[in-house]
């Protein structure tokens, strides 16, 4: 076979040339794809910073929104509202997610574990608007009015599959010898799991939790019919509450230039918030790998 190829080679010089050119073109196309794919991100960040930075000031963080036509004002209520919604979501999502992750890491391949893993992925793909109408049906309709609680629960439910997945992965990389050592010392299994395995995996789990928070922090659709938004100052969990993403939406589709400026500033703050949480997540990971290296 080798000889045949060698004999034919001179005849196929043109073919080889063509193949080489095709290869070069395709490789160049993947370079182009990488450039085109990063372009939208660069443009979005550029526009958000350019248009958002002008409206940013101390007032933006400390003042309430003002009516159209009045200069100044901020989105203090939305910023606080978003933080409160995140807190409620974490209270709902973290315990369930971490508990389920512990279960999955320990019962690796039972039928129930595999089903839960699969359904957790399905839950992760659930459209956020569907989670919104579910939370409405569950917590708004029976109570009779919109509330921060309903919004937080909707966001918390969205966190569960993310936290479950990362918790499982982080616990799985804890060396089995640690667990065995603790068991050999006479620790009961539950204490081994909680104070040895879970503690060792904690930095990774914190990272996972922060990534989940970063993802839900900017969600708007689940809040439309739950937290609903509020023009006024409110921190009560049982009342409608303002949220940064909702304010960006309202101001973006309004016809007023003043409000558009507020929307851009809100978008800048929201992106900064998400980035800050993501960077914190990376730092937590680094702490973990640093500890492993020592």
């Amino acid at each position, binding site marked *: 076979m080798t000889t045949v190829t060698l004999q034919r080679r001179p005849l196929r010089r043109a073919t080889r040339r063509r193949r080489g050119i095709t290869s070069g073109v395709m490789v160049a196309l993947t370079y182009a794809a990488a450039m085109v794919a990063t372009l939208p991100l660069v443009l979005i960040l550029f526009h958000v910073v350019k248009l958002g930075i002008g409206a940013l000031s101390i007032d933006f963080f400390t003042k309430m929104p003002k009516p159209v036509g009045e200069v100044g004002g901020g989105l203090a209520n939305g910023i606080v509202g978003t933080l409160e919604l995140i807190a409620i979501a974490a209270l709902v999502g973290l315990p369930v997610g971490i508990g389920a992750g512990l279960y999955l890491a320990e019962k690796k391949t039972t039928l129930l574990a595999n089903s839960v893993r699969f359904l957790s992925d399905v839950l992760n793909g659930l459209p956020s608007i569907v989670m919104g109408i579910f939370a409405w049906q569950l917590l708004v309709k029976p109570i009779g009015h919109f509330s921060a609680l309903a919004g937080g629960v909707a966001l918390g439910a969205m966190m569960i599959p993310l936290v479950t997945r990362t918790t499982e992965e982080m616990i799985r990389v804890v060396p089995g010898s640690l667990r065995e050592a603790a068991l050999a010392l006479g620790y009961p299994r539950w204490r081994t799991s909680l104070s040895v395995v879970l503690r060792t995996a904690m930095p990774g789990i914190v990272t996972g939790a922060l990534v989940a928070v970063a993802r839900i922090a900017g*969600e708007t659709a689940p809040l439309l019919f739950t937290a609903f938004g509020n023009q006024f100052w409110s921190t009560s969990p049982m009342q409608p509450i303002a949220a940064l993403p909702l304010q960006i939406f309202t101001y973006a589709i309004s016809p007023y230039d003043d409000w558009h400026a507020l929307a851009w500033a809100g978008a800048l703050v929201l992106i900064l918030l998400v980035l800050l949480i993501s960077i914190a997540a990376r730092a937590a990971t680094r702490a973990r790998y640093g500890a492993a290296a020592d």
Partner: protein
Amino acid sequence: MTALLQGRGLGDRLYTFGTTGFALAIPILLAFIAYEIGKAAWPALHTFGWHFLTSSEWDPVNGHFGAAPAIFGTLVSSFVALLIATPLALGVAIFLSEFAPAWLRTPVAFLVDLLAAIPSVVYGLWGIFFLIPLLRDHTMPFLRDTLHLGATPFFTGPAYGPSMLAAGVILAIMALPYISAVSREVLRAVPRSQREAALALGATRWETIRDAVIPNARSGIIGGIILGLGRALGETMAVTMVIGNRPEISASLYAPGYTMASLIANEFSEATTDLHLSALMAVGAVLFAITIIVNAIARWLVWRVARQGVA
């Protein structure tokens, strides 16, 4: 139950009981969502039957509800998105897993991943003030007149701006990081020996990818594309802000449209009659069903490749 309570002490039993409970919370939650939405959707589905899916009359005033334009819009906008995003995402994935020099790999991967972190509402804001003017003033006239695509039914009519095309482009940008991340993973899972064997046989760099790497990763890549489809189908805010929100079926991508998610987002808090509310819940139920099927197929395909990779 006995298996559950095998642990020796009370602490072990409580621990097993607790973690099992949290794990069971996930299927229970999913079933609960399906039940609640199904229950709320039932009156509308019962009243209109199959017409709910096929009728294109959405008239809250006269109490007639047909979701066909929204279903059509969801499918078309997601299809356009995949058409744009798939080649780009595959290009990025191949670039990152095969060709990128080491110093470019991390920053490009980071930037593409960051696309997934931008909140949907920010995409919408950017879409309203930059993408739509760009499409209206440049891309749409260019496609219709300069490239003479106006001769086909898909690129006809006035270029308003808010349109199915705008929704498709925004969705493409949003689905891209998901498709590219999954494709990158499965490409990387293809053993090095496959590439080396192809190169040793005299294949060019591109032929190696095309004939030795991609066939091994194919079902995983398809899984990634379907996962991106799942994201696009359920995406709400950005689409609502750029699609124009008109419940009509038009072949032209230049015409405004509606999606299931944006229909719910726009009308839910203003629904006054029980039937209207139930119809919106039914739209949610249809969306729920479609995304669950799509996601299940995607996960199954990706898992299959992951298992092969280990073997």
